[in-house]
């Protein structure tokens, strides 16, 4: 039978190879699914993995969608490295869109105008503050009340979505909007400036890439980042070294909330230029997959956010060209994460073929001794 054998050391090759194997298996799975749906698998795969990068316009769209994924995933990577299970980036994203959008709307309503893009830094800053504040709610409840950050951050996603709905259906609704749930279009002075003329790509991608460098330095060159990761890997060792777990919790949550909020404000002031209930198309959740596929590493996150963004675009193309449901993207993304987690086993274990009968005694003996210890 197949047996897993622990490696003496985690395999470096496999830690880079496992996402590639997982991707290859996802492609195989996708082909099978296309065949099952009666579509040409070659055509299907090319729509998901080639056409999104075919030409400047398409590539610009991929980078546009990769920007919020990259920002959210960078923040989440800090959390997961610190063993803080923030899964509410979606809610923090929405709050960033609300606070950023709120500032943009306020400037618009006050008639404070200027050159295009003049006030966009202000909008983005408001987004960071909003996202961080939303994450701080989770931090307070975890820190003061010991409540599970997984459940709290997730519940806050639903609260944030309802809050956004309330605003765009209620007080912030554009009176001239034909009764659609949407706000006024923001003034041009709050828009994020375009990066490539003729595309929707804006300066957000540059900001995101700068953040990648900043996070690399923080995680691998700064003492604070090191402390945080020790706390995640070996809490006991961190306690002995006098590293504060509370401080790590707050740092991780505020950073990741701020990043998700930044992404939210960028989405509002970038391609959308107004708020609607659909500011996010699940970016905060997709970012969790981006984060794991990217090995919780800033550079890996750049690559995986482009990959997942291609899949998002591929889903839209598959809908218009092959008549496939757009939800197929979600199936592929979920499968990718599953397969990645399975392949990650290869990092710490070797697969061995074993035909000899199972030896029971040597494994049972230490456990029995342990039991004795527990009883005494």
């Amino acid at each position, binding site marked *: 039978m197949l047996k897993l054998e622990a490696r003496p050391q985690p395999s470096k090759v496999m830690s880079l190879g496992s996402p590639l194997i997982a991707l290859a298996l996802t492609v195989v799975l996708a082909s099978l699914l296309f065949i099952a749906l009666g579509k040409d698998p070659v055509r299907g795969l090319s729509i998901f993995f080639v056409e999104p990068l075919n030409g400047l316009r398409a590539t610009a769209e991929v980078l546009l969608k990769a920007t919020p994924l990259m920002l959210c995933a960078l923040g989440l990577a800090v959390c997961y490295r610190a063993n803080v299970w923030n899964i509410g980036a979606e809610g923090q994203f929405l709050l960033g869109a609300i606070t950023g959008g709120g500032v943009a709307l306020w400037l618009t309503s006050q008639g404070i105008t200027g050159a295009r893009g003049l006030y966009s830094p202000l909008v983005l800053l408001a987004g960071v503050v909003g996202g961080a504040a939303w994450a701080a709610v989770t931090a307070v409840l975890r820190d003061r009340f010991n409540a599970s950050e997984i459940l709290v951050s997730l519940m806050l996603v639903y609260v944030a979505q309802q809050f956004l709905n309330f605003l765009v259906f209620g007080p912030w609704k554009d009176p001239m909007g034909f009764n659609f749930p949407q706000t006024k279009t923001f003034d041009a002075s709050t828009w994020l400036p375009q990066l490539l003329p003729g595309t929707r790509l804006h300066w957000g991608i540059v900001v995101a890439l700068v953040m990648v460098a900043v996070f690399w330095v923080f995680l691998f060159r700064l003492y604070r980042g090191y402390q945080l990761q020790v706390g995640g890997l070996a809490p006991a060792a961190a306690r002995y070294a006098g590293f504060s777990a509370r401080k790590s919790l707050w740092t991780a949550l505020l950073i990741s909330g701020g990043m998700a909020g930044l992404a939210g404000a960028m989405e509002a002031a970038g391609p959308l230029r107004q708020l609607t209930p659909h500011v996010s198309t699940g970016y905060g959740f997709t970012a969790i997959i981006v984060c794991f596929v990217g090995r919780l590493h800033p550079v890996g996150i750049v690559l995986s956010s482009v990959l997942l963004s291609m899949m998002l675009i591929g889903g839209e193309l598959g809908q218009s060209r092959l008549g496939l449901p757009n939800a197929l993207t979600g199936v592929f993304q*979920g499968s990718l994460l*599953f397969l990645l*987690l399975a392949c990650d086993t290869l990092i710490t274990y070797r697969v061995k073929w074993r035909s000899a009968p199972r030896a029971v005694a040597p494994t049972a003996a230490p456990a029995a001794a342990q039991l004795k210890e527990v009883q005494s």
Partner: protein
Amino acid sequence: MNEIALLIAATLASGTPLAVAGLGLLLNEKAGVLNLGAEGMMLVAAIAGFATALATGSDVLAFAAGAGAGALMAAVFALLVIGLNTNQYATGLALSLFGGGFSAFVGVSFVGKKLEDRVPFEVPGLADIPFIGPAFFKQHWMVYVAIALVLAMSWFLYRSRAGLVLRAVGESPESAHALGYPVRLIRFGAVLAGGALCGVAGAFLSVVYAPLWVEGLVAGRGWIALALTTFATWRPARVLLGAYLFGGVTMLQFALQGAGVEVSSQLLSMLPYLATIVVLALISRNPLWIRINMPASLGKPFHPGA
């Protein structure tokens, strides 16, 4: 008076899926496995149950399909977590994300279709009592089954030998292993059974409660069910109590709207989620209490001889 009776009836109906899913997760966690995939399992089961009910018109078959779908999803989770020792948090998240995508994908052709409202089961004799009858005894039969399940689960966990072994596996897998119990097999079984119960809960939502399919129909109830196990400090009877409490909060928003309270419906929709956060914080505040009640090896992998 009549409104209050209807409110109680609606509370029982909306608490039932939470109770059933909560019980399933409780069983999981008593065996030491934390499955964050509840939302995904419930979504896939909801569409499986809905499709079956639409095709056959049978509730029993719909619940069976839901249970099967939930167990199948749980089997994938168990293979990874128990077979390959993957991280339970990450794998559960993957299950939820996959379930969300997969159910939306399969469900596309079912959006807009509607099942007939289910005919409630009237408990003979009791259903005719004024007030009490409409409040408690005119419900879908699954509402009563859920209560029976709570009793059965209490008996199983605390009065049966198999339940004792299961709890031992969740408290100290090393000891259970040394005594010769197949720890991983028991955990596998608990995860499958938990998935099946989450599946029944999902099918209840799409077949009885809604009764229709829309993307994301479960709307966070899987996560609330996870929170329920903590509220209940891992006791089956308290899971039921908590479920009705949350069912009541969910219904309260409609009652307040009906009473003409001047609050927007979106703000009222936040209530169940806010209530979850508040109660979770209050219950978790005493770390000692949580530590005493929580299965000691919850979330920790076990691999004999490794």
